Structure formats: structure tokens, C-alpha cells
């Protein structure tokens, strides 16, 4: 019974995820066609030539742009399924290839930041939930300041303190672990603050529950009560924030990479935006959508591990 409903749940989520991706692809297709003007012109114009009508027609034919719109749409979807995100106007290379080349540093940064954020949040929440009032106030004050600080201001502050004033850590670049520390914390701290807030509120609520009284009445230590019983209940809420976390990581990557002059997908995106490289921008957005769907699916499976009520009825 349990595996059955688990599989059904995963299957359902998978279907929903595919639906979201299909929607994203469709919106991206519409955006390309409504606003990109004549794609053939854009494709050829990059070569600095002033193409004749005959050349343009040939290019349109090559790219299938003279086909009816639904054929173009189906072909577009077909290419996406094969992992072809289109051709960059500006860099003249496949968008997928450009992303693949820049992916490494961004994944490094995002994963490091996610880990730091979650660990910090769990640690702080466990330590500060339902303690003396001033501990809670102090902690939520710090969190409030951190959540209100825009990413680029926070990064700047860290740079000023740790690089320009104390010269402890490098200013920029992709070299080595040391250069990863400041960007990671820049990206992680605001997320950690939001997660810690949610987690502490949840923990405080859970710690008021009757079952916690039961657990305490068995003679369990406070630390064990928090870690063994309360934490799991409060994580149920935090897991639902995975979408927020992914969004913050990907969005924050653009700013963090700019600030610390790091290579990565964020920089690629920003270049695309400034150069009006529409296939590149939309390609990255579709890619982000894929990441979102995949991570959420994984989180959802993890969710059923935390909360068995979802699959046992």
C-alpha cells in the first residue's frame, strides 16, 4: 500500500512537472516570436552583412521560419526535448553549450550556499526557539536585518570587511576555495535568515504541542526533544519553501557573480540581457525552469520521508 501510493504521488508530481516545463517552453516560444522581430535578420545581421532578400529567404528556409506557426512550434518543442535550447544571437554558439561551459562555478556556488543556508538555519533555530525572550528577539532582529539587506549590499559589506579592510579573503575570481567563501555567504545569509525565521516559528509552535508534553513526561532531555521530535515536524514547513530557496539561489547568483566578478550562468544571463540576446536569455530561463522542477521533485520525494502521513492512509 505504501509503495503504491508513493509511486502514484511521484508519478503525479512528475506529470505536473512536465506540464510546467511544457508551459515554460510555450511561453518562451511565444516570447521569441512576438518580440524577436525577424529571427532570420537577427541571425544573419550579426555577420555585419547587409543581406539581400534572397539570402534572407534562404536562411528562413534553412531554419524553417517559412513554415506554418504550429510546425515551428512543434519543431521548437522537439529541439527542446533533445536538449537544444537554440542558437545565441551574439555568441553564435548553441545556448546549451554556453550554459554547459558556465555551469560548473554556478553549481559550486549554489550548492555551497544551499548547504550553508540550511545548516545555519537549522542550527540557529534549534538553539533559539523557545528560550528566554531576549534570545528570540536578538535572533529575529538579526534575521530581520539580513532579510532586508539586498544581496548586492550584503556582498559589498562582506567585501569591505573581509577584503578591503582586513585582506583575509580574495576580492574576486574563481580560484580555489578561498574565493568561494565570500560569494557563498553573500548568497546564503539572506536565505538562512528567512529559513531560520520560518523554522523557529514552526519549532516554537511544535514545542507547544501536546505530544511534546508527552515526550517530556517520559523523561527525555530538552536537546533530544528538540532534535528527535520537534525538528522533524518543523522541517515539514521548511520543505515547502524549496521553491523560494531555488529562486533565491538562481536569482542571487546573477548578482553575486557580478559583484565578485565570477564566471557562471548568472553572468551569461546578464550578458544576454544587456546584449538583447533573446535566445540566450530564454534558453537560460527554460533551463532554470528545468532545475526548479527537478529539485522540487526531489524535495517532494524527501518530503514523504519526513512525513509518512502523506503516503499512509
Amino acid at each position: 500500500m505504501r509503495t503504491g501510493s508513493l509511486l502514484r504521488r511521484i508519478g503525479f508530481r512528475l506529470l505536473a512537472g512536465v506540464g510546467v516545463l511544457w508551459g515554460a517552453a510555450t511561453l518562451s516560444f511565444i516570447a521569441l516570436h512576438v518580440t524577436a522581430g525577424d529571427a532570420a535578420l537577427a541571425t544573419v545581421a550579426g555577420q555585419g552583412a547587409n543581406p539581400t532578400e534572397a539570402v534572407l529567404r534562404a536562411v528562413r528556409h534553412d531554419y524553417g521560419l517559412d513554415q506554418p506557426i504550429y510546425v515551428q512550434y512543434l519543431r521548437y518543442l522537439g529541439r527542446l526535448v533533445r536538449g537544444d535550447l537554440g542558437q545565441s544571437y551574439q555568441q553564435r554558439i548553441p545556448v546549451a553549450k554556453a550554459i554547459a561551459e558556465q555551469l560548473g562555478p554556478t553549481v559550486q556556488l549554489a550548492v555551497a550556499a544551499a548547504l550553508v543556508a540550511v545548516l545555519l538555519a537549522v542550527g540557529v533555530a534549534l538553539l533559539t526557539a523557545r528560550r528566554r525572550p531576549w534570545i528570540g528577539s536578538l535572533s529575529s532582529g538579526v534575521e530581520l536585518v539580513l532579510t532586508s539587506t539586498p544581496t548586492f549590499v550584503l556582498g559589498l559589506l562582506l567585501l569591505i570587511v573581509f577584503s578591503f579592510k582586513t585582506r583575509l579573503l580574495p576580492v574576486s575570481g574563481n580560484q580555489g576555495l578561498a574565493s568561494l567563501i565570500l560569494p557563498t555567504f553573500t548568497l546564503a545569509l539572506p536565505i538562512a535568515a528567512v529559513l531560520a525565521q520560518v523554522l523557529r516559528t514552526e519549532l516554537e509552535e511544535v514545542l507547544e504541542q501536546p505530544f511534546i508534553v508527552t515526550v517530556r513526561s517520559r523523561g527525555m532531555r530538552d536537546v533530544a526533544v528538540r532534535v528527535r521530535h520537534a525538528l522533524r515536524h518543523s522541517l515539514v514547513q521548511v520543505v515547502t519553501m524549496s521553491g523560494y530557496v531555488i529562486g533565491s539561489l538562481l536569482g542571487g547568483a546573477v548578482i553575486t557573480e557580478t559583484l565578485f566578478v565570477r564566471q557562471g550562468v548568472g553572468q551569461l544571463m546578464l550578458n544576454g540581457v544587456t546584449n538583447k540576446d533573446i535566445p540566450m536569455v530564454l534558453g537560460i530561463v527554460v533551463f532554470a525552469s528545468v532545475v526548479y522542477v527537478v529539485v522540487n521533485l526531489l524535495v517532494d520525494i524527501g518530503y514523504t520521508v519526513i512525513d509518512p502521513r502523506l503516503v499512509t492512509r
Partner: protein
Amino acid sequence: MTVPLVEVADLRVAFADGPVVDGISFTLHRGQCLALVGESGSGKSVTARTLIGLTGYRSRVSADRLAFDGADVTGFTERNWRRVRGAQVGFILQDALASLDSLRPVGREIAEPLRLHTTLNRQQRDEKVRELLASVGVPEPEVRARQYPHQLSGGLRQRALIASAIACDPALLIADEPTTALDATVAVQVLALLERLKGSETGLLMVSHDLSVVARLADRVAVLRAGRIVEEGPTERVLHDPRHSYTKALLAAVPVAHAKGARLSAGPAPALAAVLAGSPRTAGTGPVIEARGLFKSFPGPDGDARSAVTDVSLTLNQAETLGIVGESGSGKTTTARMLLGLENPDAGEVRVDGQPLAQLPRAARRRLQFIYQDPLSSFDPRFTVRRVIGEALRAAGHPRGERRPRTLELLELVALDPGVLRRRPLELSGGQRQRVAIARALAARPEVIVCDEPVSALDVSVQAQILDLLTDLQQSLGLAYLFISHDLGVIYHVSDRVLVMKDGAVVESNSVSEVFAHPQHKYTKALLAAIPRLETAHRRPADQSAAQPADNRESAGV
């Protein structure tokens, strides 16, 4: 005499907003059961929790003497307490669904005190868990131990919770409202189980708001009010010869405890006739609502249809009260909602004054009003009482100028001070909210009021006042009530005729005296047997049902 198990002298507990326990003293011996009885806020639960040092970090506890098994515990540190909790004192809270960790199998919950206080290894603990489950009457212990609380029925859950409390053979068992969340028939079984566990070496401290529940089990009763014991003595004596006026009032307020038709609350009946001058409705005796062959099903969690109501027919006559009684999930509320047109029956028909309900114009439907169990949620949170009632008057067609005097009249009818007009429902007490709900219903000048568990969320004394109010209103206004309750005492008190429902169907229908005196259906008999009776219950031998595994319906899972 031996050393008492628990000795408490002049116990005081205070929180930031004042004292909650204000000088309480009692003694409990092994093999004895003491019940602390009182309404919400009386300090009974807090008193119980001081015995395991769990009054919360914001509380201040002091006592002349607080001793457990002869050892003084007033200076106990957290570490000292941990050795007592679970090992020497077992603690049972109400509503096992909330009192067991919902994310862990019940077996692990029961094993937890063993893990903390014994040296048993995992295998031995599993073995012991199965023994414990079997000993509290849970069938198929190996299967149950691996299930989660939500997969067990209410009775099995409560048994599992009890199993975890007795895992280490504690000398003292504290049970805080152990049966409040349970249906009557299941509650009887759980009480019997507790009685059996009490044994000769274990002391039992019961906490309850319900005198009739403790009557079954307690050797001594202490009645608490506002943090003090107002009366303490042997159960028999307290119940039959109460000395304090509060105890007397509490006993009088229990609906089943005395003659039907008597007033439950103290104080005279308000002169409603004066208020209502000029608006008496000539009450006839014909049927107002007739329902024939109602069916309703809802989609269950797996998508299949679950039948909620099957083939229910009923008639409600003018100016009478029809009681519907049944346990949770028996289809009482769904039936009522269909009578009001809030839910469309899958089959069957509802007629109001001979007309099909579906064809009734909206204005005519106003003649049927609804009072909810939780009145708070039935008010727009932004609205003050004035707007709540004003809106109902406006809908009933009262012009603006008439609304204010009429609002004041309605408040007087339900015995509320005009001062509440500026308040929002959130700022009112439970009883006041229910009075506002009644006033709002009356604003529509109804012939019928459907009351869905209108007093179940209220303390017994407030409950008494609301029941009296409803009776007074019926007599002055000629209202017909459809009164839904799980509480047979309340049903007996208010009803002229009774429908007994089980699993969506009517199993018995008759006048209230017939149903209570000569129940026909086996389920009705079981329900009646489960009513705790103040007069007779004491020292009655435990029902056989408790010693046996729970019946099939109970062990069905879900």
C-alpha cells in the same frame, strides 16, 4: 499508615499574568484514585503537571510540601525530574492524536520510555512493546506497533498512549482528561482499562471537567475553582451530598442528573414575554420540515465515494425539539445541512411547509436558521456585533431606522449587555459568542433553528445557561429546534423526540422517554449503557468489553 504516594501542601503556581494554582493541598495513596474536577481555568491541569515538573519555564511554583513517595521534590532540578518522569510517573493526555508524535510509528513512541529508563536492547524493547499493547487491549500488536497514530482509531490510539505511559511500571499514573476526545462507547472502555491498571500498587490522579466521568473511577474527588479546592471528599459523599454551593451548582448543571424540564442554571427565567410584546407567532402543531429518503456521499481520500447519509427520513413539527444523537461520523451534521439546503442530497427530498426546499425563494429559506458548534467561525472577523446583527436585520427587510432598537431587543432576548455591540467576536467569551449567534438567528424571525452541537465547546455551567436560554426562547417564540449532539444527557434534556444515528442511517426514532426507557436497537442500548450516571455509576464493576480486545469496528484501522 504507609507513606503516601503524593503529598501536596499549599501548592501555588503562577504565570506572568497571575496565579493559576492558589494554595492547593491533597494526598494520594497507592491503589487509590483521586480526581481533580473543575471547569477550564480552574488550575486542575497545571496542578497535575507540577507532579512531573512540567509547568513550563515561565511558571513559578512554590509549596509547603510537595513529596513523591516520601521524597521531597520541591528542590528538584531538571535532571532529577527526568529520572521521575516516565519511570515513576506516567502521564496520559487527552486526544492521543495530538499527544502522540504523528510522524513516528506508535511502537517507537511506546518504546521511548524503555529506551530512556531501562537497559533493554532494541529486540527486548520491541518484545515489551508488543506485551504492553496486548495488555491494554490492542489487537494484533505487531501490526499496530508499526502503524502511525493517524492510522489507528481514537480508542486504539488512546490505548497506545496509555501503553507508553505504563511502559516502565510507574507508581503514579496521571490522566488528564483521558476520555474527553472519545466517543461515549469508546470512553467507557478506556475508563475501564484505567480502573484495571490502577491495581493495588499504582496511584491514579485523574483530571477532568466532567463529574460523571470521574464518578466511575475515583475514590476521592477534589472540586477546583479558580486555583483552589472548594470541596474534597469521598466520591460518593461529594456527588450525593455536596456541601459547597459551587459543587452543587456544577452537579445541577449536568443535564442528565435531574428531572427533564427543570432549569439547569441558577437565577430566574428572564421575562421574555415583555421583550417580545407584539411579536408572538401563533404556533401550530403541523410539520414544518419533512425529509424523505435522503442520501448523500462524498468523495473519500482515495477518490471513491464514501456514503455519509443513507436513507434518512424525518419530520420536524412546529414548536417541538427533535434531537439527533450519534457519535462522530454518524452523519448528523450532513443530514442537518441537507435540511437547510447547504448540501444537496444525492437522492430524496426535503419539504418545508409542504413545498420542496429547492423551489423555496431565498427569503422563505430565512425561516430556517443554523447555529454552529463554533460560533466564532460563523462571524466575519472584521464585523462588530452591531454589524453582525444589523446585517441579519437588513437581510430580513428591516429598514435602517428600525434596526437599532430591534438590535437592542435581540440582545435583551439573549441576555447580553449592549456593551458588546462595539466588540468583535474574537473579543467575546465562548458563551457570549453563542448568544450573539442565537441573536443573529432570531433576527431572521425563524420558525426553525438547527443547532449543531451548540454547547459542546462550552463549560458545563455556561452550557446550562445556553440550554436554558434556548428552552425559554422556544416557549416564548414557538420555535422548532433540530438539536444535534453527541451528548445523550443534553439530548435527553432538550428533546421531545429523538433520532439515533449510526454510520449514516437512523437506527431508532421515538419519543425521548421511550428511547431512554425502552431502547430497541442494540446500538442505542450500547450508547445508553455508556452514559456515565452520577447516581448509579460508582463502584460498578468494569465492563467486560474493556478487558477484551476492542470490537471489530474499532480495530478496522482508518
